[in-house]
């Protein structure tokens, strides 16, 4: 092997290492994008963690107590604090974290005082006071959980997006360099296989390490009503990291294989 070929082989190996690091970073960005940074994942975690049931019960309890204190029946309140209303209320507050604040029209207590006056014959003053008290209880109960950690992450959204694109570009660049520095398709294929295998293994190790080695389960007290939701929310990230790494590795291998078959 000539000195030029040796240098090319050495450069190819260096590019494989850079490609592997970029691929792992890309997998990390993708995993964050589909889990911790995605509103849908957050909403699903609240659902799975039975957080909405907790909020419904807390809101009902607070509003019923207000009605009892005012000497009024709680029946109209019970029919308004539904799982759908709770879900809409909490998610609206959470939505503000992703898309900024919007007018909150999710309170189910609009017209409550009129209903009390029309159907139960209560005084306007009592029913108005009750409606305001219920609105306040509702506002308290529907505060979006995990907002501090979500807001902390949201401020790095653009960093994540930028790094994702940058890593994808660098990875593609490393792939092109493999092609330019290789002597035959076997060399290209070997190089890409090294990147792919390294990426899959690194992502699997990181996924396992994140899940079992960081102690994230104790970041929040178990007694917190949103603990289950937190576990679902954060617990989805390490497996996604491993899955994204493996998926990326498979895609890299498939692309190389396809290109190789085209030259047969």
């Amino acid at each position: 092997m000539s000195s030029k070929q040796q240098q090319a082989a050495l450069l190819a190996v260096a590019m494989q290492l850079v490609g592997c690091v970029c691929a792992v970073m890309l997998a990390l960005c993708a995993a964050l994008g589909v889990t911790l940074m995605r509103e849908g994942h957050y909403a699903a975690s609240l659902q799975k963690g039975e957080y909405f049931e907790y909020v419904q019960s807390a809101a009902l309890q607070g509003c019923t107590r207000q009605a009892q204190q005012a000497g009024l029946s709680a029946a109209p309140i019970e029919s308004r604090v539904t799982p759908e209303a709770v879900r809409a209320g909490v998610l609206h507050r959470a939505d503000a974290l992703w898309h900024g604040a919007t007018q909150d029209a999710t309170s189910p207590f609009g017209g409550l005082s009129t209903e009390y006056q029309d159907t139960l014959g209560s005084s306007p003053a009592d029913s108005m006071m009750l409606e305001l008290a219920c609105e306040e209880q509702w506002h308290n109960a529907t505060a979006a959980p995990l907002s501090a950690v979500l807001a902390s992450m949201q401020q790095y959204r653009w960093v994540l997006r930028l790094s994702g694109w940058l890593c994808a570009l660098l990875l593609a660049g490393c792939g092109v360099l493999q092609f330019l520095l290789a002597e035959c398709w076997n060399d290209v294929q070997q190089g890409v296989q090294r990147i792919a295998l390294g990426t899959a293994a690194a992502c699997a190790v990181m996924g396992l390490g994140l899940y079992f080695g960081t102690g994230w389960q104790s970041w929040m007290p178990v007694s917190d009503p949103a603990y289950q939701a937190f576990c679902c929310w954060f617990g989805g990230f390490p497996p996604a990291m491993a899955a994204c790494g493996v998926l990326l590795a498979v895609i890299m291998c498939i692309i190389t294989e396809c290109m190789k078959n085209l030259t047969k």
Partner: protein
Amino acid sequence: MNDKFVYKAAPAQKSKGKNLLFSLVFCVLAVMIVGGVVLAAGRLLRPAAGASGAPGAANNAPAGVTQSEAQLQQTLPQPGDAYGTLRISGTSVDCTLYYGDADEQLNAGAGTYMPTCLPGQGGTILIAGHTATYFRDLESVQEGADIEISTNYGVFHYTVTGMQTALASDTSAYDLTATPENVILYTCYPFGQTEPTEWRYFVYGSLVQQQEAAANEQ
């Protein structure tokens, strides 16, 4: 296409071991590099994940020996110490409260401006927080909401008396020498900004209830 990329049959299996070895080295290096980034991010997220801000969430005042108000005078928290938690009803603001408002404290919770008072000292308590993180939901605060500050020497409740936006340079927005005891929370405005802005959002509260921790409570 260049002739060199015309397909050739694969060489002997001897390169398989070499490939695996390279992959292993890449894997280790990638884990070290990207893992370092992830761990650094985790260190930032961990304090924020300590409290959900959910209604009825456990309030995790820093553990410590309970003190009376008199003892507080003798054992003021040191600059940078976490001395309590801050929660506001109707919002998801729920964070650790630090003595000092340097970047280090504001990255981990809300910070008390040190020249002002501490809860229980009878004057103005000025507390800052980042608008992109711990004080992001300050925009949900409504008049009459309850600001709860739990410390290891007592629990203090303040009711929100007003909110306003003011220029950062507008010193008329706060009176640091006012009595009786009151709390002023502030953050950059508009909400959610990651860079310092010209405007500040102030939330004012006055003390309504003070529960000293029981002397024998641990």
